[in-house]
């Protein structure tokens, strides 16, 4: 097995996926069904991630900033 080209490596990865999920054993129409289901789920999850993760991260960032900001003011008042 020599990784002489990227194409061979991708083909080898595809073979591993086929072996692990038993799609190597399936008839062509079953494979079509299985891959359609998988790709649909993948697309849906990535679309959801694309829409919601930036919003979640900025919300979390603001929350932590607010927390740190409050603490800073309290510390200053005690020292003084």
């Amino acid at each position, binding site marked *: *097995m020599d990784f002489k080209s990227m194409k061979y490596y991708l083909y*080898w990865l595809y*073979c591993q996926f086929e*072996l*692990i*999920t*038993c*799609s*190597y054993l*399936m008839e062509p129409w079953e494979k079509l069904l299985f891959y359609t289901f998988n790709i649909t789920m993948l697309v849906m999850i990535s679309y959801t991630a694309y829409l919601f993760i930036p919003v979640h991260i900025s919300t979390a960032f603001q929350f932590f900033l607010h927390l740190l900001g409050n603490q800073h003011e309290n510390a200053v008042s005690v020292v003084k």
Partner: protein
Amino acid sequence: MANPSAVCNGHLHHHHHQKQNNLLKSGVCKKNGITKGMKKNGVSNGTLYKKTFIEHFEQAPMYVAVLTFVGFGVGTIFGYLRDFMRAWGLEKRNIAEEREQQKDFVPLYQDFENFYTRNLYMRIRDNWNRPICSVPGPQFDLMERVTDDYNWTFRFTGRTIKNVINMGSYNYLGFAETEPTALKTVTKELQKYGTGICSTRQEMGTLDKHVELEKLVAKFLGVDDAMVFGMGFATNSMNIPALVGKGCLILSDELNHTSLVLGARLSGATIRIFKHNNMQSLEKLLRDAIIYGQPRSRRAWRKIIILVEGIYSMEGSIVRLPEIVSLKKKYKAYLYLDEAHSIGAVGATGRGVVEYFGMSPDDVDVLMGTFTKSFGAAGGYIAGKKDLVDFLRTHSHSAVYATSMCPPVAEQIIRAMKCLMGLDGTTQGLQRVRQLGKNTRYFRRRLHEMGFIIYGNDDSPVVPLLLYMPGKIGAFARRMLEKNIGVVVVGFPATPITESRARFCVSAAHTREMLDTVLNALDELGDFLQLKYSRYSKSSHPELYEETRFELED
């Protein structure tokens, strides 16, 4: 003449010692008890074992188990989908099913085994039951067959695939051969006696050939007397009921062969199972049996018999005979040893596990074996004390009702045994045993170095290579056949569902080139299919390892 066993013992001991040192250097720790890697016995029972007893039962990494379950999960989901389609008429039904009138009865085909057969086994069914059309020697010819409807039916194209390297036949000593010089006496006997006996042993089926064979078997094993039967499976299943009955206790190993299980069930005795090759489990069962007796009446058991095999064919492990014999003497039980795979294959002169451990055959009460594996014939024998064999001659079902062994087959066993014992004037028998030992050790060592997970004892010629995932079973067998190597793959229900394996049977007839071809193919395929799961492989510096070995083989 020098004692051959001394040379072999020294040889083997040295080899094990070297392997131990190398492993310790690479920092692998040994554990006693539950094994994750190498298991060594000899520390606590130092006096029982004359040489080190190393068995491997390595567990695969966790991700392999997870991925195996993923594969089975997907297969099960698609199985349910297909069953649904079949039930609703969207797909043609090719399988066995009940008639219309029986649909309201208790369902016949709904259990897991039938589900598995329909949906998972059928998809890879082309790897089993392949018809061969030559003698199953080190190489053989296969009939080419193709399927048009995904393994439901097969048809033969008419071509044969020639000279496929045979890694599946139980041809341990290479006696499955067609050379005319080797089969001279067999041809003569065939012309003298014909092929059929047409009678049972007790009526008119005892020939002088049988008497000669029985005397030879008794001499070979070093016991008083022996009796031969026409079929190996029937030797177990028909003779155990003659030896034990109701009120007796059978302690049988977890992984015993179906013939032993069937014989035990037919006898009507109480059966208790102990964990595979686990002496603590066996001792606990023996103590409980003697302390508590029979279940309700608390009477003593009439007989306690321990059923074990010499080599277990799915694991490649060798029975711990010295410990079992000491247990049996302590608790006064009987021992029935089934040497189907180990007779001819282990031991310095091929006399089985009794010789391998350096024990005397008087320690084992019933020695049973078959002639199908190492002798290239058919049938089985039971050997032991004269009273035992005389009793079986009159009381065994096989002796009374089954036809006896046919004369050419008996002659083949006689010539093979004479060759093994050296009575034909040559050292060919001993050479074959030595060659088998060399091939076994070489094959196992190389597979360990490459990083595969191999089960079993280092000296057993049965080599199971673990595959784990269901998708890889079919891929492995098909690709090996494309490279002209015939292998046997095993899955559920012969093995636990997550531990599917490929089983190799090394033979004395394999040459070094054949083994190298197979090993190179395995290397390539192991990389492509990602089968090298072992975490204890010694292949970090294979050249150095070669130099520090003192074995005389090239």
